């Protein structure tokens, strides 16, 4: 017990003073948490403070933010050629969250054009984005990062009771998501849970894997992209499976927008009580966000600084305004290819007041509403991709995942194309109208393959198996 206390102090001191964390100490804390669960059946008092970090107090958080930002920019100016140029002439020691706006944001195109100029330490693993929303970008990660992040994530999940011994995670991510898959496997190892890396194989096979018992356990946790999870819902329903057939307690989705109706369908079909809609990007790891029951996105303030920049002015967005999510991961959590004020392109709405949800202690914005380049400015007002997705997802006759495209016509009216052989244009238009969206709808009665070509999603990064492959 004293040893655990010493370890906690060591890790906390490193966090407060911005020193590199001792990965073994964090891993041992995960083991300590598991032993605590084994002995007591639950964790002790004040576990929330340990899970959410010691900076729930706004004043303390501001002080931490300023020191962490100064530390991060000093290191970037020293080691990163890109930021050495960008930060020239800026008083780095006097930098605060308020004056941070003087530094131009970093965009994905910067990473694509000058990747080597972002490197600050010895790279170990390269992971490449899929390019589903544009040109792919290669991100390099250090050995330290690849060891630290799973330890921090495992600690957080074990402390929150979201993962532990007895759990089995089925990972339905594309095998090209090297960092994410490796991280999940390592998280399971540290949390004493088992895992099965299934990949994005034909969804019917993934559903069968969910039913398979190994050592008396079926998968209890499922992780994947919403579009692929949607395909699994369709496959499971087609085969007549219901919640009693599965052993899932949680499904974690991410990488795409998860609609309310798909989340409900996942619960109803697979029987999982918790369906998590998480935010995370390889460029920003380990900064991540969770979505609460009120559908706010709560981004961890301990590992990075989050801004919402107004869509027109580029300045911090006022309450209730739309803006682009811009994140700065702090050193020492991000060290190999760190970014400063990274504009994610994801649009959110700032909250008009303090959140009143179960995660109120963690700062929040609205859930992701879409990419800034895909907002639709119609004559009737702004329509976000989220608005369209929430309206159409779950429409009878529209199987998951929803395949669609929207654009504003010359007449200023929204035009939505939907792939479906069953739904009528009138039905789809009615669904949109119910949510206050006036749109002209075209239904394309095409096969799945054609629909996938017309409207690609992450689930289309399909991996063939000898079991099903026609190759």
């Amino acid at each position, binding site marked *: 017990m004293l040893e655990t206390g010493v370890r906690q102090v060591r890790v906390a001191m490193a966090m407060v003073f911005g020193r590199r964390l001792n990965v073994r100490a964090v891993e041992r804390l995960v083991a300590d948490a598991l032993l605590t669960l084994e002995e007591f059946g639950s964790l002790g008092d004040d576990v929330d403070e340990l899970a959410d970090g010691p900076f729930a107090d706004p004043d303390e958080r501001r002080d931490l933010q300023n020191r962490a930002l100064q530390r991060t920019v000093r290191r970037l100016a020293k080691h990163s050629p890109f930021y050495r140029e960008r930060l020239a002439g800026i008083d780095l020691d006097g930098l605060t969250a308020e004056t941070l706006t003087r530094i131009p944001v970093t965009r994905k195109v910067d990473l694509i054009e000058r990747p080597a100029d972002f490197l600050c330490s010895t790279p170990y693993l390269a992971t490449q984005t*899929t390019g589903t929303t544009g040109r792919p970008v290669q991100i390099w990660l250090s050995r330290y990062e690849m060891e630290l992040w799973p330890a921090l994530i495992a600690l957080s*999940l074990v402390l929150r009771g979201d993962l532990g011994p007895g759990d089995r995670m089925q990972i339905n991510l594309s095998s090209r998501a090297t960092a994410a898959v490796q*991280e999940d496997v390592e998280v399971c190892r540290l949390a004493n849970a088992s895992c099965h890396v299934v990949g994005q194989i034909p969804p019917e096979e993934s559903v069968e894997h969910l039913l398979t018992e190994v050592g008396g356990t079926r998968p209890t946790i499922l992780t994947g992209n919403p579009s692929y999870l949607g395909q699994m819902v369709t496959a499971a329903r087609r085969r007549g499976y219901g919640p009693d057939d599965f052993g899932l307690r949680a499904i*974690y989705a*991410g*990488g795409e927008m998860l609609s309310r109706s798909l989340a409900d369908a996942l619960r109803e079909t697979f029987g999982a009580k918790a369906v998590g809609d998480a935010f995370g990007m390889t460029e920003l790891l380990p900064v*991540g966000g969770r979505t609460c029951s009120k559908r706010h996105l709560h981004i961890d303030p301990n590992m990075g600084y989050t801004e919402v920049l107004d869509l027109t002015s580029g300045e911090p967005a006022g309450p209730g305004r739309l803006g682009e999510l811009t994140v700065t991961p702090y050193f020492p959590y991000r060290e190999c290819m760190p970014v400063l004020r990274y504009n994610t392109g994801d649009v959110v709405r700032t909250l008009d007041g303090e959140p009143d949800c179960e995660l109120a202690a963690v700062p929040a914005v609205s859930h992701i509403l879409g990419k800034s380049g895909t907002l639709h400015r119609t004559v009737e007002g702004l329509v976000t991709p989220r608005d369209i997705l929430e309206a159409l997802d779950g429409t009878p006759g529209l199987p998951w995942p929803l395949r669609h495209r929207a654009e504003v016509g010359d007449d200023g009216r929204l035009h939505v194309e939907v792939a479906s052989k069953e739904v009528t244009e009138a039905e789809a238009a009615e669904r949109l109208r119910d949510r206050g969206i006036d749109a002209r709808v075209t239904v394309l009665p095409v096969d799945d393959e054609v629909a996938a070509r017309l409207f690609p999603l992450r689930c289309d990064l399909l991996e063939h198996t000898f079991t099903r492959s026609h190759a």
Partner: protein
Amino acid sequence: MTVFFQLAVTIALALGVCVGAIAYFRAVRTPRPPVGVFNGSDIFMMMGFVLALPYIYLTLPGAVLPVVLALVFAGGLSVGYQPLIGNGRLRWALIALLIASVLACHLAFGETAPPYWIANSAVVLLIVVSATNLNVQGGMRLKNVAWFLLALTAYDAFFAWVVPLTQELSDAVQGYPYAPAAGLRIGEDLGAVVGMGDLLAYALFTTTAYKAYGTRGLRTGIALVTLFGAVAPVATLHIVAAVTDHAPTLIPAQVFFGPAAFLGYRFLRRGGPERRMADVVFRGTRGAPGPARPQAPAGRGAAAEPVG
């Protein structure tokens, strides 16, 4: 007369502290840190404290030692009884009253008078009861206690017979209040005193045995404490006095109790694995409950997949 007096007082104290610790264990749950279970490393640290504390005490000037002890007592009582008396002001007022009563009795009646020893013993017993529970409810296992007591046996023998540290400490607190011991003295002739460390050993063993093996563990613990914690040391004291014609001033009780407790653990272990705190049914008071935890899932994996 002396032998019966000493037997009665020693048994009453040894069993009293065990019963008190078990009653506390059944009735109260102490607050615990979010993460952490008592383990073998803690035993090493505890032994370190046990080794270092007497030297620290002995380096203090005579008059400072009781002040330090009084502060340690007060701190121990405050931590240990916070789950029972949540109101801080009331708790500290009662602690101040207890600590003051020891001093008052010492000043009014003297060091060898029963009122001082009764007051001092009450404070010591209360501290031992709460300290025992902080450890046991922190996940301490009978296995940990058995090995700790075995180490304490060697310590006790060494510092009683080879390096007379225990005697020096006993002499150092003579004439001052807040002796780290419980007992009863009636004048210069009748006296029976049990060290605080010995009482802690008895309470720890009995309570962990109860936690680990229920009633069977409790019976074993009580029997071992009575025979080897109380009867054997007192009997030895008088046998040595009769044989050598010289009564020793102290008997290292752990020399008897430590090995017996270790064998007791080995005996109990045959009954199966120790119960965990999670297996112990509790229907009493829970100290300082924390707020309800948010249950929203923290997604991983898919969220970290590279975005396009």
